[in-house]
């Protein structure tokens, strides 16, 4: 593996009595897109804030490009581009003014800064909105401007907290295209937090985080492979009763997750007719598919990424 530009060692943090993070060790290589996947409250944001030097971890250590986040926060900040969940832009200033302001905070020299701003405005297709106040931009445009802001000083490590929230599908695609370019052209290491499967699938490697603990750390493919077979999701009536009946009549081990019955087995499609014959009239819907990252998460933690499906849709 190439140079590990981001490393953490047994990071832990508490909020009062609650352990928000416990024993998290990870390493991210230069040029790698690394995803932090987990439910809200799982510890993603805490880990993100520790790496961004905003809060100090209670236990363990973390470094960016060899600089310790606690002992040398300045060295770390110089190497970090950070975009938070809500854009760090002043709505009263224009896009160009915001970028110039931030560039000066980064200590960029006047001439370089002007050229760099123009370059980023062009790259992010914002040149015609340079003079618009950020408060008048759509959420997607503001987010793009914020990403340009985070990249101004050409940081070797970029941290993005839920970068696709509030983006329409096209804007989401654009964002990933940019991140891909960043990685391939400049060897930038990108850390993305997300609770969305589509985002997680696009990462080179993933860290699954649940209740502050590392659940798994691998490539999306490897994580899926370890489950193997197909996943059959069954709906119909009371899930607990249905699971009992399926288990009794068909001898499969059934787990109930989020109001559905789930079975993992090889050649799932062959199982479906048997299911309908064994439980006539009881099945409302069946789906058979390859295991998703969500299945991996369920397998490892016993609960879904989303406890209620309402918020999953937003």
């Amino acid at each position, binding site marked *: 593996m190439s140079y590990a530009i981001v490393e953490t060692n047994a990071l832990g943090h508490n*909020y009062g009595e609650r352990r928000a993070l416990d024993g998290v060790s990870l390493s991210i290589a230069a040029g790698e897109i690394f995803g932090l996947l987990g439910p809200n409250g799982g510890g993603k944001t805490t880990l993100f*804030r520790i790496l*961004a*030097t*905003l*809060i*100090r971890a209670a236990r363990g250590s973390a470094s960016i490009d060899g600089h310790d986040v606690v002992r040398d926060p*300045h060295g770390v*900040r*110089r190497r*970090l581009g*950070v975009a*938070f*969940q*809500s*854009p*760090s*832009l*002043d*709505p*009263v*200033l224009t896009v160009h*003014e915001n970028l*110039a*302001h*931030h560039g*000066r*905070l*980064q*200590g960029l020299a006047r001439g370089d800064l002007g050229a760099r701003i123009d370059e980023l405005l062009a790259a992010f297709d914002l040149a015609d909105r340079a003079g618009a106040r950020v408060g008048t931009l759509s959420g997607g445009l503001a987010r793009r401007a914020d990403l340009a*802001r985070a990249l101004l000083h050409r940081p070797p490590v970029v941290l993005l907290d839920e970068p696709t929230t509030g983006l329409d599908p096209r804007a989401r695609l654009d964002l990933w295209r940019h991140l891909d370019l960043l990685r391939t052209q400049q060897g930038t290491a990108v850390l993305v937090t997300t609770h969305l499967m589509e985002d997680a699938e696009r990462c080179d490697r993933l860290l699954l985080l649940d209740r502050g603990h590392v659940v798994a750390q691998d490539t999306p493919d490897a994580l899926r492979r370890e489950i193997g077979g197909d996943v059959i999701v069954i709906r119909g009536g009371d899930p607990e009763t249905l699971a009992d009946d399926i288990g009794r009549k068909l001898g499969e081990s059934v787990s109930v997750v989020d109001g559905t019955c789930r079975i993992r087995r090889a050649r799932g499609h062959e199982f479906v007719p048997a299911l309908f014959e064994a439980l006539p009239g009881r099945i409302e819907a069946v789906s058979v598919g390859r295991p998703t990252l969500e299945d991996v998460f369920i397998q490892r933690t016993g609960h879904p990424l989303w406890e209620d499906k309402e918020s999953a849709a937003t």
Partner: protein
Amino acid sequence: MNSTLAATMGAVTTLWWRDIVRFYRQRSRIVGALATPLIFWLLLGSGFSGSFRAEGNYATFFYPGVMVMIVLFTAIFSTISVIEDRREGFLQGVLVAPISRGAIVAGKVLGGSTLALGQAALLLAAIPWLGLRPGASGLALALLVLTLIALALTALGFIIAWQLDSTQGFHAIMNLVLMPMWLLSGAFFPPTGAAGWMRPLIAVNPLTYGVAALREALAPGAAGTDAPSFGLALGVTAAFALVTFLAARALAERPLDARLA
């Protein structure tokens, strides 16, 4: 120039610049910070004119107090943006930039102070109508005192705003702490005529000295012999500015509370 120093200066300048631009683009803030004290001045100045027996008329007595009030309002409200910036995510972007916390505090305090001083300076135009003759040196001293008061109050506002996560909390502190501080500063009534229990409060209130210094600069001798000497008043005001700035910086350098991160 040393490159770290240049970077710090650049950061302070751009933070300062942002505050000025914001203020200018939010016209309602200009009106709010200026109109309230002027209305106070007009209503109280006219209302008390008959019953006020100190030397000169009440409008003239109240004049330095109104200036300090303008400074207080502008300085304090300019620091409310710290709370908004934190909520909207702007502040986090500043906090992860490679600049010292001292530079962040300095940019904010200079920005707020410039605005406060600018608004108060507008009121200096009223001097000829008030029968005051401070002369050029008195005017310069008045500006110096106003600058120190503006720095102190903006830094004080920063200290309050840094620890709050809602602007409602800020308004409560404004009403419970900052307004009484202004009322007990000799801005509104002469300390010599105040009830006995108030006297110690007035004496330990650092703003008392700012108002006294400003009064002395604008009308030498008018405050009477009980007032603190100009040297003492100026010294306390300068110390007030320095202490609040250092306290604001120390506060900003502390690791953040999870609630505020």
